[in-house]
Every structure is written in structure tokens, then in C-alpha cells.
């Protein structure tokens, strides 16, 4: 895997639109945004601010809650250009790049903070990876790690893309069933900041497997009681132990606290 140099970046950005090697980062406002081995990207105008709500936790395994989350947990704001947004210490918001990016099938990308902003304590991305074949604006997880509020304005160049060539041939598609170029992934051509999307159609079904197994998760039947669960129920109802394997007269507090999955 090698990092794309400025010459290679420009070559790919000027390749024929039909070429599988074509790279798009658009619009770039000035030539100087392309550095020796990276592309500076700017903050866009769309942000998402988490709301303080009655919800006690973000539970990505709860399908129903996740699907309702966008309206209950997040507020979308469109910042006018030349207007200030203040990111307070320890605050996390979602922003988006001004630029729209399309990575070819043989290019993998990472987005990181520009050092000036990093030195101020601004982290622009916690999920830094952009897969080959991505198409859209990049959602930024903006976090203020400093003790002072930071003023942000749409248009400021806060991040940089580092592009790396993978071992894949751009013209060949992966033989895996769902990897095609360009990828129609979880976020389809996003142009604004996007909240987390668990459970898009047909995906993430395994998350529910790892979550707490209760009726409130919308399952048709409650799961069969586990030894630990049954013990706790019996104790509440004042019934004697049944002598099942693994059972003790007192509940194992460590097991209870950790929520060990059933064997």
C-alpha cells in the first residue's frame, strides 16, 4: 500500500470521467489544497448536534430505538456561511466536509485533522477511514479536547485526506457479492452530516443478537430463561432452587453485573 503523491492525485483528478482510476474531490477552491501527499478539506455547513433527552443510553442493538433516534437524539442545523459555531470543551458534534469525495476501487482514504487545528484541541474525525468506492461528503466527528471553546466557521480547512493505493486493480471488481464500484454503501451519496445509521435495510441483524434479550425489543416470544435469569426470577418469587447445573444459592453478582451471554 503506498500513499498517493501530489502528482498522482492530480493525475487521477484529471483522468477521464469514465476511467476507473478517476478520483473526485469537488470542489477544490485552490490548487494549494493539494499538498505533497494529502488534500486539505474544508468544513461544510451542515452540522448535527446531539440533544439532551429522556433517553438513558444509546443502545445500537435496540432496532426500534435506533430507527427513532434521529429525531429524538439529534438536531440538524444548517449554518449560514460567515456565521460562527462555538464548540465547547468536551463537546462532540457531527459536521461534514465541504467537498464531495469519490474514491476509486483501488484507493483507500483516511481523514485526519490538520495540525494547526489539532494543536488547538480539535479532533475532526474519530472514524477516520473511507473505504474504496465511497461516494459522498464525509461526516466529521468534531470533538473539542481542549479546555477552551473553539470557534468554527463553514469553509475553514480543518482536515486533510491521505489517500493510499490498495493492492486491488481499479478496473477489476471484488469477487465478493456486495462489493461493486462505486459502492452503494450504508450512506448513499451523503451530502450532509449523517447521524449513525444502524439497521439500514437488510443490514446489522447481528446487532440484536448481542443485545439484551427482552420482550421490549419487539421479539415475538421471550427467550427461554437462562439458568441465571431463572434463578433471579425464582428468588424474587420466593421459590426454592431447582438444583440446575451452575446454580448457586446466592446469585453470582459478577455474572449478573457483566450480563454474561447464555452458554
Amino acid at each position, binding site marked *: 500500500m503506498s500513499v498517493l503523491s501530489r502528482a498522482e492525485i492530480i493525475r487521477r*483528478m484529471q483522468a477521464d*470521467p469514465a476511467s476507473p482510476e478517476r478520483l*473526485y474531490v*469537488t470542489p477544490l*477552491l*485552490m*490548487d494549494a489544497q493539494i499538498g505533497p501527499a494529502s488534500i486539505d478539506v474544508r468544513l461544510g455547513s451542515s452540522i448535527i448536534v446531539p440533544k439532551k433527552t429522556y433517553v438513558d443510553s444509546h443502545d445500537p442493538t435496540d432496532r426500534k430505538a435506533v430507527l427513532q433516534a434521529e429525531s429524538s437524539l439529534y438536531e440538524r442545523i444548517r449554518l449560514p456561511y460567515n456565521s460562527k459555531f462555538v464548540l465547547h470543551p468536551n463537546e462532540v458534534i457531527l459536521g461534514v466536509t465541504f467537498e464531495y469525495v469519490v474514491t476509486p476501487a483501488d484507493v483507500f482514504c483516511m481523514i485526519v485533522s490538520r495540525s494547526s487545528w489539532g494543536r488547538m484541541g480539535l479532533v475532526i474525525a474519530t472514524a477516520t477511514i473511507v473505504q474504496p468506492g465511497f461516494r459522498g461528503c464525509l461526516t466529521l466527528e468534531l470533538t473539542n479536547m481542549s479546555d477552551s471553546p473553539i470557534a468554527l466557521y463553514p469553509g475553514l480547512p480543518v482536515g486533510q485526506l491521505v489517500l493510499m493505493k490498495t493492492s486491488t486493480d481499479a478496473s477489476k471488481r471484488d469477487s465478493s457479492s456486495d462489493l461493486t*464500484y*462505486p459502492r*452503494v454503501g450504508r450512506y448513499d451519496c451523503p451530502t450532509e452530516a449523517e447521524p449513525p445509521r444502524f439497521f439500514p435495510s437488510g443490514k446489522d441483524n447481528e446487532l440484536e443478537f448481542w443485545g439484551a434479550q427482552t420482550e421490549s425489543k419487539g421479539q415475538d416470544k421471550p427467550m427461554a430463561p437462562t439458568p441465571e435469569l431463572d434463578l433471579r426470577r425464582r428468588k424474587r418469587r420466593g421459590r426454592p432452587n431447582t438444583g440446575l447445573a451452575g446454580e448457586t444459592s446466592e446469585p453470582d453478582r459478577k455474572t449478573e453485573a457483566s450480563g454474561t451471554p447464555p452458554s
Partner: protein
Amino acid sequence: MDPSEADSALILSKCEDLAAQLVVRLARIDHRTFPSPATSAAADILSTLLQRLQETIPTYKSNFAVLYTQLARTAKLVSEIEESAASWIPLPLVANCDSSWKNLFRSVEESVRPRVFYTVTEHHNFSLEDFNAELGHLFEPLLTAEEIDKSFLGGKIWHLKLPKFEGSNIPLFANVSHEYGHAVFKANERMVQELIDETFGSFLTGLEKELARELEGTAIHKFISDTLKDFCGELFDDAIATFLVGPAFLVALSEMEWGADADAWHVSLQSREQTHPSVAFRVDVITRESGVVTFQTELNTTLKAIVPDVNDSIGSVLSALPGHEQNKVQFVVSPSRHVRRADVSRVLTKHRVVIQHGCRAFAKLCYQKIPKVIVDLDKPSKGGDVAQLVRRIRLGLPPNIFPTGHYLGKPAGLGAILTASALYRRALLSRNLKAPEGEPLVPLPEALARVDRLTLKALEVSYVQSRFYKAFPEHSTHVST
């Protein structure tokens, strides 16, 4: 029956309370959520007048029912302003529309330049109202005309209403440019009237003699004269729209009239805003006068070369718009119970050929005169350039850049972006567009949502890029024309 003295006192108290509530509601709106500064100005003016009204209510002695009705109507206006937050009205669209507006009135000194603010409406229609007159209707005779005018500080504000229902259908907002035409018409009314006189002057003189022998001939003549002026007004507005956004307006115009009779010329004897020529006639006039044929030829030639798989479905959108036939014209005069309806309908039908020819001649004059009156209009979009934007949409890219050979490219204008998006969207709706090679077929709602997202992004970034290059021309790699 007049309300009793006791009831009047109750109504007066209720009015006082309502006025106070409206002032508080306006004060609580966060002006940073407004899509443009003009909305803030409009809210402030309304608040000033309401506060002035609050002061006069305790001494009000006239018809209290009128006072209450006017306040109820004012409450509706306050609700519209509350709902005009940017979340309903896309900022990138407003920024581009405001820029077009400024171009239309660039020759007017900034301190007296008319402004426009935007609200959403539940009606499925775009409309532009004179906000000065709107407030005049609401507050007269509760306040004096001088008090109302004074609150505007000599300025003129227009109120543009956008249909809430079509919030994400970005290309439809090309209709905004037609509404802007109303404001331009008013600002150049004398010039336009001269064009109308040049076109219909002798016809109206002859008609006056013809109707002189009829009962109420003068009244009928007045209705016909007003109707012709309204027809011409609509054609003038169409011309302005075409200069601002190009063929995007053709597509948007036809979409607003889906389901209606394309050959019907509507004449309203009560509400002159509802009088307009048929969609088919308007499309025909625009097509002949604004270079759409050349545009379409260039579009199809370039599409065939660069995106052959969409050539037919996109290239056929403009030619599939309603066609006009002279003898299919019919005038639909309303309301049906108006005492003059039959007479007006008879006269219009009798002279329909002359009327059509006159309207066509008037439109021709408009297309010649407008570039001389409004000198800062952008050059019209070329079909080849729009084809490049169509290709970008096809590739899942925002249609924001014309290729120039340099990777920075040249930012596309409002008209080109809306036209490319309108054509692509119409092709999707016709279900003639196949998925790009190698991509899965996306359900229609998702495909449309994708086009709208990409269009809005293009409007945003191309606007910013153009402003950036005006401030820093050394970074631009193209020559602005």
C-alpha cells in the same frame, strides 16, 4: 346586528390579548434561523406595527369585529414567518435566489433596492406578494397609511411564498424566477405598458368601437383590456424566468400544471392573479423565443457522445412538453356566476386568433427589450455544458462544475444546475432511465432523493466557489465570461 356594548368590551379585551401574544411570538423567533436578512426585516416591521396597534387598541371606538378579523389574519402571517426557518427553506437555494434577485435590481441604489423574503405555504403554488400592500390591507384602517409606510423606512419588500409540500423538489423552484418577474414588471411597468400598447393598441381601439353599441360595452372593454394586460404580464414574467434559469423553467412550469388542461387560457374576473395564457402556449412561446431548440440540439449531441445510455430519456424531456395548436385554444372565464362572464368569453373567443398573435408579438418584444433593461443577466446555459452536469448526476456527483481541462473546473450557475437536475429528475419520473452500468437499481424515491441531495449540494458549493473567486480571482483557473 351590531354587538352590544358589553360584547364590544369583551371583543376589545380579546383583541388586546391577541395583539400582545403576537408581539411576544415574534420576539421569541430566533432570527438566526431565518433563511435571509430580509425575513428578519419583515418580522421587525410587523412587530413594530403590532406594537403600535397595541397602543391604539384601548382607545379604539369603531367596528371591533373588523379589528378581531384583521388580527386573526395577522396571526396567520406571524405563523408563516415562524415557519420560515431555514429547516424548511434550503439555505443554498435562497442564497442563489437572492443573488439572482440582486442582479435584477443592480441598477437600483442599494438603500431603496427592493428586498424579498421567503415563507412556506400549505398551498401548492408559488406566489409573490407586495408585503407593503399586504400589511396595508391588514392594518388599515386600524392604523393610518402614513404610520404603516413609515415602518418600512422608504423600502420595498416583497413576500415570496413557497409550497411546503414540494420542499425537496429543488428543480421546481425554478418557478421562483417567474415570481421575481412580477417584481420586475412592477418596477418597469411603464416600459411594459408601452410594449402592450404597441402590440394591442389598435386592436383595443377597434374593439372599443365594436362594443360601443352594446349594453355595458365600456365595462366589457375594460375587462378585455385588463385580461390582455394580465396575459402579457404572465408572458413577461416567463421571459424573466427564462433569462434567469433557462430551460429549467420550462420543466418547472409544466410540472406545476400537471393535471390541468394544457390548452385552457384562464381568465378570472375577480382575482387577476389567476389570469394566464395556456401552458401549451407559454411553452411554445418560450421555445421559439429563447433558443431552446439550439439548446436541445447541443444537449443531445453532447449526451450522445458522453453518456449514450441516457441520451434518449433525457434528450426527449423538452420535446415531450405540451405542444400548442392555435385552434385548440379555449378561454375558461370564471367565476361562472359573474354577470359579465358570458360577454367576456364571447369577445375573447371571437378574437382568439388576434389575441394569440398579439401575445406572441408582445413576447418577442420582451425578449428583445429585457437584456437592455436588465444588464447583468448571466449568459444562458449551453446545452453542451448542461450535458456535462447531467453526466455528473449520472455518476452520483453533484452537478456543480463545468470541466475546463483543469481539475478545479468552473463553477456552474443556478440555471445550468437546475436545468440538469430538472431533466434528470423528469427522466427518472418517466421510468425510462436505467441504472448506471454496474450499479444496482435504486427504488424511485431513493433515486429522486439522491438527485435532490446532489442538486442542493451543487447549489451550495458552486455559489460559495463563485463568491470565493470574486474575492480571490488569482485562484480561479478559468476566465469568467
